[in-house]
């Protein structure tokens, strides 16, 4: 499914700001799935991720006038979604992460059999035990496939500090998985 007019993001943002509210749907449609996976892995639940993505788009609409570079809407939107995901984790720190991990299992499609599915569940549970920063760098690199350079640019941070986070994440994951196997 493609929008008929391949209008650039900047053009759509400017049109919305000029009063053509309905065109915002084009941006939503264009990017709603782009970070769906990121939000799902960050929050451990497709439902929570859908809420987060929805909220982020609404918030982005509210703050659209503050998008300094309309051509770079998607990067700016990512940061809004990111904040929303981080806020969610803080709110839900106490709720059963096991519940969320089971939800992720439901997302599993049939491939590789029961052992792979169990591995995935274990890994997702372990991911939820990391800090949000550690989980994020792991998800961006190993799920979304970004390089350290790309992540650094997106998060406005340095590669060495990202690697430090990641290496701590590796250690914690290994510890989690070893303890619970």
């Amino acid at each position: 499914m493609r929008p008929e007019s391949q209008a650039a993001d900047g053009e759509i943002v400017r049109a919305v700001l000029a009063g053509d509210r309905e065109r915002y749907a084009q941006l939503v449609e264009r990017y709603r799935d782009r970070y769906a996976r990121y939000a799902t892995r960050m929050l451990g639940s497709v439902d929570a991720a859908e809420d987060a993505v929805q909220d982020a788009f609404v918030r982005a609409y509210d703050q659209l006038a503050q998008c300094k570079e309309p051509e770079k809407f998607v990067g700016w939107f990512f940061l809004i979604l990111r904040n929303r995901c981080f806020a969610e984790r803080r709110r839900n720190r106490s709720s059963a992460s096991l519940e969320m991990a089971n939800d992720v299992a439901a997302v599993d499609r049939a491939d590789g059999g029961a052992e792979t599915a169990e591995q995935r569940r274990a890994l997702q549970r372990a991911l939820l035990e990391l800090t949000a920063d550690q989980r994020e760098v792991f998800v961006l690199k190993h799920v979304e496939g970004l390089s350290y350079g790309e992540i650094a640019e997106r998060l406005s941070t340095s590669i060495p500090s990202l690697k430090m986070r990641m290496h701590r994440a590796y250690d914690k994951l290994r510890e989690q998985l070893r303890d619970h196997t």
Partner: protein
Amino acid sequence: MITLLALPLALLSTQQGTGIAQRLAGRVLPQIASLVEELGTAASARGLPIDPLIEKAIEGSAKGIAPERVASALRLVAMQLDTAAAALRDGGLDSDTLAIAAGEFAITAGLSGSDITALARTGANAAALTVGLRVAGTLAALGVPPAEDIGLVSVAMRSGEPGSALLSLPANVQSAMAKGATPAQAAAGLARAAAAQAAHGPPPGRGGGHPHPPAPPHP
């Protein structure tokens, strides 16, 4: 529009959910619902049916089609409803919403306004014409060219065929096609058979008026 209309409609409560807003609620984007309201109000004022608009909007949303594309499709449906209505009026049939909707379907299937007028000129009543238009559209969707299509359906209608016979025309064409006939050949063959029957006149007791000689194929 959706939330505001839902409240007054509920207060008036004379309808069981036939309002546009209620039929679209939760199924389409707000801007699509607004467009359907806008096109529907105008259409209804001209005596046109609104079901084709509502169905197309729901279909587009269910298929995940981008809003601009759904909007284009809706405007096309509205235009085709107008064309069908005008064609029916030219054929002597005024403002029957089911017939107009059937005409719109026939146009989507590839028939023209004049094809619709030709069928309307068979003199059939609105109900029979509605079936005739649906069948004509279905035959077009099978690949029967307009000339043979209208030829077959108008012969069948003029001979006072019951609705069930009309409705089995597409299946008969498909059977003939399965045996190797082209859609045009299949339709022409069936038209000849129907004309031969018509020459003997309708069986006594069947309504449908006086027998016509078989009409020549529509040019």
